[in-house]
């Protein structure tokens, strides 16, 4: 404990590597754990991207034979599982960890040791999942990495149909990392409710804090059903249970219900922090306060609540009654309203502003257009009969990648660039940042815009090859080409991060002329964040300081 009283950048560089490594491995500091989460996520982003590339190259033309069906099926399973659980979740938790205490004027999270435990058990889960490539052969010599799809429908996951241990790697790695997720969620909630600096009532905390609070609440309520379902699956596979054993009267549909009761709120767990980034970055680069803060909070909390009631829109083709189908149409349409409102609020924030097109803002602007499209294709899918045609097709794949890549990944890139100066003390290279943006933007649209078409023309998902003569060929080709632009963009991004970390110019405390508390401390912040705990009077304490003649607290 005694060595950790000065900022990272102030320590002499001559300390031995083993000592520095030990500090990182044993750290309980929210900033370091946040960085560990984010680096972990970036590493798995590369791995998941390779899996995607393999799939897209296999699908570049009909009857291609780059990989066997067995390998392809493992690729889509691992790609989905990796991207959701070991890229998007750790990104979300990493940024929450780093930013929340700083933005609420606290010195750390509520439970620092739980924080460290949560990270390491998540990391263990990820490594365990990938160990399946080596160790999945089990007693029967069958299977390696899991190949049951990321939602692992029963009874394909029963011992009869999934021989060997590949499915168990899926189940256990997610069970284990789920513990970490719930731990971090508890930490976020306790931190936000119990450690805000004086004057920061719930109505005065940054939107990022509100959105992460909502996200954490959803994790608590949504990850647990997945844990329960996975315990049931393990009981079926190893203790002879019959939860999902259709031969013994069990129900395959009940797995779907349990999984999607987790699965739908999960996507809101991922997207709500994306909204948080947009809600912090867009105002700063438009030079205006966020439009309609109270409604933004209300919309977010509503989204959180309603998201627990829409899950069976993933099951419209399963044979539920017309009444049940109609209910889920209504609830899904309902959630579109607060979500759409948020887009209008961001638009209104920009309206009348003085927009600066730095890299973080470019990514946020693209997010606005792309999330609009993603939300609208989601509305079309909420029309259950339309989903009877398009469910389980490439239209759905295009829709959810539009949300996750076009929405979540784009705002995550924005957040990287926006907070990079704060975390490292260095400015990133703006030219490379813009190059990354344009490469990735072009690649994203090539792949995912045109991917909607094969769905409309009848192409189902999760197929390792397809028949010629169905009109799918050209669209698959274009989608594959886009992958290489995206890969190039990500390489530029990683290069920029590395180069700027070592060679970037000093950023100073507040390179963006921003208004939330983290910009008042040094870059990087000292380990204790704030020498004196701040006292605030409005939602934008630094605006009040910079504009004493026109402070926010007069208008809030």
């Amino acid at each position, binding site marked *: 404990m005694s060595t950790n009283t000065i900022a990272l950048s102030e320590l002499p560089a001559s300390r031995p590597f083993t000592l520095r490594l030990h500090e990182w491995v044993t750290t309980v500091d929210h900033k370091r754990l946040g960085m560990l989460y984010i680096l972990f996520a970036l590493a798995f982003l590369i791995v998941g991207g390779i899996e995607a590339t393999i799939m897209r190259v296999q699908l570049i033309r009909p009857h291609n034979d780059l990989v066997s069906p067995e390998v392809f099926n493992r690729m889509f399973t691992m790609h989905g599982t990796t991207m959701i659980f070991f890229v998007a979740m750790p990104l979300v938790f990493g940024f929450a960890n780093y930013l929340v205490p700083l933005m609420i004027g606290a010195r750390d999270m509520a439970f620092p040791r739980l924080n460290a435990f949560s990270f390491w058990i998540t990391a263990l889960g990820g490594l365990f999942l990938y160990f399946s490539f080596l160790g999945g052969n089990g007693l029967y010599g069958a299977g390696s990495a899991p190949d049951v799809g990321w939602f692992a429908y029963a009874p394909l996951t029963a011992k009869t149909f999934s021989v060997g241990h590949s499915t168990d790697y899926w189940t256990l790695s997610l069970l284990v990392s789920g513990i970490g997720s719930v731990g971090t969620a508890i930490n976020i909630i306790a931190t936000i409710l119990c450690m805000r600096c004086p004057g920061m009532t719930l109505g005065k905390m940054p939107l990022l804090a509100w959105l992460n609070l909502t996200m954490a609440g959803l994790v608590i309520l949504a990850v647990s059903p997945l844990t329960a379902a996975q315990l049931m699956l393990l009981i079926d596979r190893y203790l002879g249970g019959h939860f999902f054993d259709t031969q013994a009267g069990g129900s395959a549909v009940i797995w779907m219900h349990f999984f999607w009761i987790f699965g739908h709120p999960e996507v809101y767990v991922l997207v709500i922090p994306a909204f948080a980034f947009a809600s912090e970055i867009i105002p700063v680069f438009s030079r205006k306060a966020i439009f309609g803060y109270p409604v933004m909070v209300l919309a977010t909390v509503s989204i959180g609540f309603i998201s627990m009631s829409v899950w069976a829109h993933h099951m419209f083709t399963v044979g539920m009654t*017309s009444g049940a189908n109609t209910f889920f149409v209504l609830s899904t349409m309902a959630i579109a309203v607060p979500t759409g409102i948020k887009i209008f609020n961001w638009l209104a924030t*920009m309206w009348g502003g003085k927009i600066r097109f730095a890299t973080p803002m470019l990514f946020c602007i693209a997010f606005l257009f792309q999330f609009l499209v993603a939300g609208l294709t989601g509305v079309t899918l909420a029309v259950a009969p339309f989903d009877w045609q398009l469910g389980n097709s490439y239209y759905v794949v295009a829709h959810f990648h539009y949300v996750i890549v076009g929405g979540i990944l784009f705002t995550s890139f924005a957040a990287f660039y926006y907070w990079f100066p704060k975390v490292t003390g260095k400015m990133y290279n703006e030219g490379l940042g813009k190059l990354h943006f344009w490469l990735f933007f072009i690649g994203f649209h090539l792949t995912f815009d045109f991917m909607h078409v094969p769905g409309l023309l009848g192409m189902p998902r999760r197929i390792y090859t397809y028949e010629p003569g*169905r009109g799918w060929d050209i669209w698959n080709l274009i989608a594959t080409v886009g992958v290489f632009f995206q890969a190039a963009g990500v390489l530029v991004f990683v290069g920029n991060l590395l180069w700027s970390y070592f060679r970037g110019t000093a950023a100073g405390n507040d390179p963006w002329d921003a208004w939330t508390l983290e910009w008042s401390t040094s870059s990087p912040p000292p380990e204790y964040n704030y020498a004196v705990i701040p006292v605030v009077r409005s939602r934008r304490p630094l605006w009040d300081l910079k504009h004493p003649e026109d402070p926010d607290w007069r208008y809030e």
Partner: protein
Amino acid sequence: MSPTTIFSPASTPAQSILGLSIFALLTVAAIFIIVFALLAYALVRFRNKNSDDRSEPAQIYGSSQVELAWTVIPVLIVIALSLATARVIASVQDAPRPPGALEVIVTGHQYWWEYRYPKLNIVTANELHVPLSDPAHPYPTFLTLLSADTDHSFWVPRLAGKTDLIPNHPNSMWIDPHETGLFLGQCAQYCGTQHAKMLLRVYVQPREDFDRWVREQQQLPQGSTEAAATSAGRRVFESTACVNCHTVSGTPARSNFGPDLTHLMSRDTIAAGAVPNTPEMLRLWIKNPRAIKPGSKMPAMGLSDQDLDALTAYLETLR
């Protein structure tokens, strides 16, 4: 035109779905154009023109009227869409089964389709024959959907939306094709290694042709008659493991782990549409299924070339 496009419906469910879908697509397209235009305008009009200008614009924190408007309008749109949707759900899902409708029981297997026509005493596989339904005198086909193993999904876009085949959870759907011809589709719920090649072929035939097909299916094929009983191929068939998985009416072979082969030669394709039904392909399929559909449950039979030829010749008699 793509044979599996959703934009060319040939049956009432697909038509109802398309009508609703066009309404939904036009609605969201209109929303997109309006919001896109506003966003684009904002980016141009409110960009910071002078980078030396450090003054801040007027800080607007909100506006109740504007926020109310953009809440009420989406709610109205959502209500309209929901009502239209509820109507189509009811009309497709809750359509009553008319007494004269054709009944087919579809059972999904890894990786082929079993079709039984209970009232006609027909069992076949992978190629579904149904009669044309004239809108003036409807003759719909009602499908009961079952599964023998994992989840599958029946999707022929030009005829209807997809419905899943889930073990221990019977489902039903209906089609009433207004056009004759061959309609394509494939399994749309990941069911295992060869999910990709569990293809669907639906033959819609004019009434007389359909009735003729039914009669042919109801008779025993040439290969089942006594005269053929001693053929070399049939002896190979009956003495090897073929009989453990396949049914040929009129012989001891009786099992539905694999497709019913009684009228194998009446089908255009084998291996659930994976390859055409030619003697070469049939021979290859028996010799080395992995070459055609790796991961299918058909084992390589390990027969000698002589036995293989005889067996193929025998199967060719199952018209």
